[in-house]
């Protein structure tokens, strides 16, 4: 039927119909148009081709093609119109409007992963997207003889029919092995996941000033609170947790015995308020580390090509790590009350104001941000499905081809057995070609069966991964805060500069000493710049530099098929 008109009686020459996996079904035929108007009406007209088989007393009609006229070539000398037709396979793909619609066309046999291959609404590429989706499919798609879209799993179970020598045309049987290039030795599927590992560390600081005796005999200065706070606040990358617990020197006089002399060391209330006698504080720091986890599986495909193929996909957790790391504290509610603070059910910790997430101090956490573990699993399925598709497609290049009298019963995906001429196998119909010659009367169907050497009756896979654990325990060592005498007999001749942390000060010259006989002044000793020096520990490279972690994908791959047996 062309455009609703039965043209069977006008056909001449050959009618050919062919179809295959994931491609258009096409048909061609020639006919003698009855009028110019009829010839004109063929353009883009809907076409159906039905084949009727006759046996004595029985007829059976099969629809074999549904599509539209693609081209019409008219030969006026012969008054013959040659018509080529095609089904709507390509148009259907171009008409896809969403990722869900594309997934529906694969019948759930493909892995749709919006993290790896996202459907972009603002600039959709339906053909590219669908072709990508097809590469993860454990099957194929086609439009059947009735014009219906079909998603066909690559399953090879019990054959619907088996043909023997008597049902296959002589010398039409051919066995084709896969090309060397089709089957690699193995396929390595890799999913690279980039994310940030967030670290947090804390160090406890503790300092006390020198004794009153030392202060008197060497004329040592007291440490101003402001100097200590400045040192703490300027520790690069480190922040003070909560409030610094400072003690002030006691107000009033305290008696210091220097040899036979009793000296009263006086501290006014004004001095005490500005001076630190001792303090404890927690310094904390947090930083991020870029981590790339390579989830990998190797699928042995058994080829002899001495070549591995690789499939790689990348996903990335989107997170503003720099902002997370640099956010200062905002402990606005700390330190409001000097005494008798109201009872609250939750006390302040001093970490208030930090951006989430919050790794526990001296530990780390892997922050997947916008990706969930389920997202990662789907991406893993994506690469494994792609590997499976590639492996199965290569194995399915082992085919049996044969011809038999016109047989329109079988669709793409039908499971058929062939046992003839010493070749025996069960396979899935991957392409066919029906030819009907009105001149010679020849009516032949040519079938190609995929007979992969598989391990199952179904083509499928399962995969699982274990997410890496941030097995990190920080324990940053730090030299204790101490008191360092400069210009003193106590001054080390070559002070280890790394260890010079705490209060650095100098002994007064003898001319200014109250008790020169007891002074430790040494004019030749190193003299410090008076300061409160804090050198916070650095972050070790292994928890700072980008890290690559290899994780194995546990996968089971099944390819349907039982191969082909050949006997001489």
């Amino acid at each position, binding site marked *: 039927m062309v455009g609703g008109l039965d043209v069977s009686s006008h056909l001449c020459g050959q009618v050919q119909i062919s179809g295959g996996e994931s491609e258009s079904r096409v048909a061609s035929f020639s006919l003698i148009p009855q009028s110019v108007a009829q010839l004109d009406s063929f353009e883009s007209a809907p076409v159906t081709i039905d084949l009727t088989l006759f046996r004595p007393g029985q007829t059976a009609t099969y629809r074999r093609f549904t599509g539209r006229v693609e081209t019409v070539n008219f030969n006026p000398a012969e008054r013959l119109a040659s018509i080529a037709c095609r089904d709507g396979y390509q148009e259907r793909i171009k008409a896809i409007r969403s990722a869900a619609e594309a997934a529906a066309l694969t019948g759930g046999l493909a892995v749709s992963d919006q993290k790896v291959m996202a459907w972009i609404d603002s600039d959709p590429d339906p053909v590219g997207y669908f072709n990508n989706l097809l590469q993860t499919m454990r099957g194929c798609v086609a439009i059947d003889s009735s014009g219906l879209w079909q998603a066909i799993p690559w399953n090879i179970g019990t054959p619907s029919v088996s043909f023997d020598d008597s049902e296959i045309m002589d010398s039409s049987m051919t066995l084709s092995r896969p090309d060397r290039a089709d089957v690699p030795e193995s396929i390595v599927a890799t999913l690279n996941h980039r994310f940030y590992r967030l670290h947090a560390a804390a160090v406890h600081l503790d300092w006390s000033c020198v004794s009153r005796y030392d202060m008197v005999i060497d004329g040592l200065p007291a440490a101003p609170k402001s100097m200590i706070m400045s040192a703490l606040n300027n520790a690069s990358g480190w922040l003070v947790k909560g409030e610094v617990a400072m003690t002030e020197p006691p107000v009033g006089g305290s008696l210091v015995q220097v040899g036979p002399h009793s000296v009263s060391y006086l501290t006014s209330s004004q001095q005490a308020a500005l001076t630190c006698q001792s303090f404890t504080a927690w310094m904390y720091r947090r930083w991020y580390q870029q981590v790339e986890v390579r989830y990998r599986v190797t699928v042995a495909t058994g080829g002899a090509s001495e070549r591995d193929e690789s499939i790689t996909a990348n996903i990335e957790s989107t997170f503003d790590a720099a902002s997370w790391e640099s956010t200062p504290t905002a402990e606005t509610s700390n330190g409001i009350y000097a005494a008798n603070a109201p009872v609250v059910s939750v*006390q302040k910790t001093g970490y208030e104001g930090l951006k989430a997430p919050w790794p526990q101090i001296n530990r780390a956490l892997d922050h997947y941000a916008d990706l969930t573990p389920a997202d990662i699993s789907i991406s893993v399925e994506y690469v494994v499905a792609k590997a499976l598709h590639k492996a199965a497609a290569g194995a399915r290049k082992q085919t049996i081809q044969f011809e038999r009298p016109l047989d329109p019963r079988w669709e793409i995906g039908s499971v058929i057995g062939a046992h003839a001429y010493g070749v025996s196998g069960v396979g899935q119909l991957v392409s066919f070609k029906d030819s009907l010659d009105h001149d010679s009367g020849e009516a032949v169907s040519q079938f190609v069966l995929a007979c992969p050497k598989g391990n199952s009756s179904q083509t499928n896979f399962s995969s699982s991964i274990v997410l890496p654990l941030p097995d990190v325990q920080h324990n940053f060592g730090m030299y204790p805060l101490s008191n360092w005498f400069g210009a003193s007999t106590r001054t080390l001749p070559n002070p280890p500069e790394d260890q010079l942390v705490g209060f650095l000060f100098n002994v007064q010259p003898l001319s200014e000493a109250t008790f020169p006989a007891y002074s430790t002044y040494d004019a030749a000793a190193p003299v410090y710049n008076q300061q409160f020096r804090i050198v916070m520990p650095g972050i070790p490279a292994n928890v700072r530099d980008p890290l690559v972690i290899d994780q194995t994908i546990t996968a089971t791959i099944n390819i349907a098929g039982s191969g082909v047996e050949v006997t001489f």
Partner: protein
Amino acid sequence: METSFGFFLDPACTTPIVSSVQFVQAISNPSPDKRVVYFGSPLAGRFAVMADDSDITASISGPAASNVTLALSEADLGVRNPGAALPIAARVDGGPAGVVPIYIRALDSTHVSGERSFFISTAIFEEWSQ
């Protein structure tokens, strides 16, 4: 860091206890007043620990504290001492699964009628992401 852990009136952790807990003692009916509050967080994916890994402990304060008993089960109310602090756990997870019910029994020893109140709180704990 917004702290989400605390004491709540409901197991879903939607109504935080932000003031004193009150109970009324009637002289004609000096039976204990019992109730349950909950320690936890509405947010899954968080957990609370003490900085030194000791137990998070609920304690009570206020005028009526000595007449209030805390326990992790109703049965334990009979064996625990009034006014004693209650160790909850070394780590409490956020979300409904991690919520810890705290059983409270209040009975004024003087049996004098009146309205009394106490505070329930913990020492400083730290809240982190999983």
